[in-house]
């Protein structure tokens, strides 16, 4: 006793295609990204705990390392260690700071907010690119807080303000490339909670297995080999050079190479993960 709808006599007529509404390009796509980035910023500002990992957390690390290990590590001169430590902390903090991005994206997807975006005629990549751009504000805050607090503790740059700005710009630029790993993990992880776990497993060895906290000459050979290729080491090396003087060329080149590599690998992976998200 099954009724069925009568078979349609004709299929729907395809409307003629027009140029209007093709793949969003140029200014239109940029506008979409900015609108979405603004949304991310509003959300971040309305949830102040979103700032802990770029304010209190790096400051706490700075204090802990400077005062707990500082004396022991640099043979008594805490100030000398602070000079060494602070540029290094920038590298670790931007890497740690990127974790929240993947978590937030995953949470948005879980809540269904992205379903609405995906049903709109905007570029598929727009929500992800927007989230990364909005993260810029957090990294900027991070740099200002860390260097500002370092100054209070007695840190002084040995170069000029322009070099300092260059060092901070480099850190932020690196962060904006590195955070695509977090975006990718956010697209692949099963829950937003697991994003954090996975990213910690990646970020902790990268940040501690680098020249951030101690001179690499004290490490065993195999670890030195790892430190030598570690992108965080190169970033920290370049930032140290810019803040404290000394050669930067090779570290800078390696940092740029790593940034390009991160983008080339993880942007497409993240976008593909996002597109496949059912």
């Amino acid at each position, binding site marked *: *006793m*099954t*009724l*069925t*709808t009568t078979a*349609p*006599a*004709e*299929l*729907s*007529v*395809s*409307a003629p*295609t027009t140029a209007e*509404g*093709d*793949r969003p390009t140029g200014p*239109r796509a940029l*506008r*979409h990204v900015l*609108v*979405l980035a*603004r*949304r991310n910023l*509003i*959300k971040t500002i*309305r*949830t102040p705990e979103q700032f802990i990992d770029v304010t209190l957390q790096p400051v706490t690390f700075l204090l802990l390392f400077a005062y707990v290990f500082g004396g022991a590590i640099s043979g008594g001169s805490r100030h000398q260690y602070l000079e060494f430590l602070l540029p290094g902390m920038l590298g670790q903090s931007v890497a740690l700071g990127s974790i929240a991005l993947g978590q937030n994206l995953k949470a948005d997807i879980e*809540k*269904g*907010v*992205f*379903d*609405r*975006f*995906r*049903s*709109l*005629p*905007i570029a598929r990549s727009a929500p992800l690119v927007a989230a990364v751009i909005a993260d810029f504000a957090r990294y900027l805050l991070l740099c200002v807080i860390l260097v500002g607090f370092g100054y209070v503790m007695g840190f002084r740059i040995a170069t000029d303000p322009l070099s300092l700005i260059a060092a901070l710009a480099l850190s932020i630029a690196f962060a904006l490339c590195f955070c695509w790993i977090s975006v990718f993990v956010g697209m692949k992880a099963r829950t937003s909670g697991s994003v954090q776990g996975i990213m910690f497993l990646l970020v902790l060895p990268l940040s501690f297995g680098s020249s951030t906290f101690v001179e690499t000459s004290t490490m065993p050979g195999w670890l030195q080999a790892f430190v030598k290729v570690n992108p965080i080491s190169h970033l920290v090396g370049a930032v140290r050079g810019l803040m404290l003087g000394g050669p930067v060329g090779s570290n800078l080149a390696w940092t740029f190479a790593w940034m390009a590599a991160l983008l080339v690998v993880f942007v497409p992976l993240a976008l593909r993960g996002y597109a496949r998200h*059912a």
Partner: protein
Amino acid sequence: MTFAIHAEGLTKRFGDNQALAGVDLAAREGTVLGLLGPNGAGKTTAVRILATLLAADSGQATVAGFDVRTDPRRVREHIGLTGQYASVDDDLTGTQNLVMIGQLLDLRGVEARRRARELLEWFDLTEAADRMAKTYSGGMRRRLDLAASLVGRPAVIFLDEPTTGLDPSKREDMWGVIRNLVADGSTVLLTTQYLAEADALADEITVIDRGRVIAGGPPDQLKRVLGGQRLSVRPADLGQRDELRRLLAVIGHGEPAEEGRDGLTVSVEGDDVLPDVVAALRSAGIRVTELSLHLPSLDEVFFSLTGRSEAAHQSTDRTTEKEPVA
């Protein structure tokens, strides 16, 4: 005849779970198609495929005249989607939510704000316009979510269980809103677990179960197949139960069935049967504590369509009750 939504042979498998096993759907322009089915039937999967969020394994579908697989971008220009769980942005105000969608649809700032104001007013959210959506009640979130899918005046609107979790009075409000949408010329695909809702709103109903279409047609036709409405009566005096049973057998179709502890139910035809029932009860001198006329429940529908007992649906029904009011 032009179909705003037309799908043939849609299939989708998740792992070894066949969510859709060849579903055909058709909605004429300016009508409401009700997609009726229990939890897990494949309603959301079908909607997600038609809204270009998910690719079907096989089959083809056009929405607003565009192929969802080859022309998703154009489909997206013509659709509005209200998902099963309200996808509003909690940390944004009602206005911000709608203005953002407007801007993403390339409305200029002023226009986007005007449209947001208009919709907030229409959905009775003006008072709450500047409050963050996380302070909204379940019903308000639903309305904001629906408003968000209407910003671009879409020709085709997908509403995935728009009233699940709403209390009855809010449900009626939502029905009014949906009727207005069609009056404006939009085509609506509405999924629901309630036959009464599909009956109240849809021009055509497609019933699906386990990824297959098991019945379809206009509500009246479907109701005839399903045995019309159900009359439930509970006698005040249990001694009059047999007398009541005989009376119901005359009024209704088929044998009256037991309902609850001492109630009886029988299927009847026509909406105007109630006065006759009251008159018959009075002249027979049977007093009743309960008398109601209602559409068969989804379980009863499924029983008459598939012959499967409602036990098969019990586990899924329980999850329905717990569904968050998102």
